[in-house]
């Protein structure tokens, strides 16, 4: 039973355009969400987070949107750059103090030059 789902295994976007990566979750008790980026042969690196008390968080070219009623979050990358080509994971936690996360299966983003 996958509690955190990333239904698009891959996505291709032209350089300079917007990349939108989606993540759905099933448990309404999740209250903190993270996005990670992973390059081949490296560990995942933290990108951006959002608490359930917010619906948007921005950090430079990266914005995460949270729609609690739909149990859906998305990561927007604007503008997309070739260096953004990587696998992106979303992760959810029941309570921020537990520091335990459930990860989605990942979406491979390819930014075409």
């Amino acid at each position, binding site marked *: 039973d996958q509690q955190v789902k*990333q239904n698009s295994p891959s996505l291709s976007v032209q350089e300079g355009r917007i990349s939108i990566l989606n993540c759905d979750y099933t448990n309404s008790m999740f209250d*903190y969400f*993270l996005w*990670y980026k992973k390059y081949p*042969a*490296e*560990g*995942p*690196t*933290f990108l951006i*987070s959002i608490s359930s008390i917010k619906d948007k968080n921005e950090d430079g070219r990266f914005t995460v949107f949270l729609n609690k009623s739909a149990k859906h979050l998305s990561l927007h990358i604007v503008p997309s750059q070739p260096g953004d080509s990587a696998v992106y*994971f979303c*992760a959810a*936690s029941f309570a*921020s*103090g537990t*520091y*335990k*996360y*459930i*990860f*989605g*299966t*990942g979406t491979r983003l390819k930014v075409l030059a």
Partner: protein
Amino acid sequence: DAGITQSPRHKVTETGTPVTLRCHQTENHRYMYWYRQDPGHGLRLIHYSYGVKDTDKGEVSDGYSVSRSKTEDFLLTLESATSSQTSVYFCAISDPGLANYEQYFGPGTRLTVT
């Protein structure tokens, strides 16, 4: 970058042999985790530790044990390796002092069980 190292980085072993993977951190973070990454499954938590000698199971703990005798070291042991444990293993650390509750990951260990 967080100071996390994993050893070995690559290992090939035979079915039935015990294997121990080591995670070492220099950040003095309280929490440490072991994940495995497999195609179609993303990252799945094997075991985690919330302090020295304090550990708990994750979602895929069968066939694995862990130990944490020092803050900086978290060991993952495959008691009798099976081919289904062929995977990439990641260690991660976290701490209550981090503003985003994020986890920092090590570079991974690629394990092949033949």
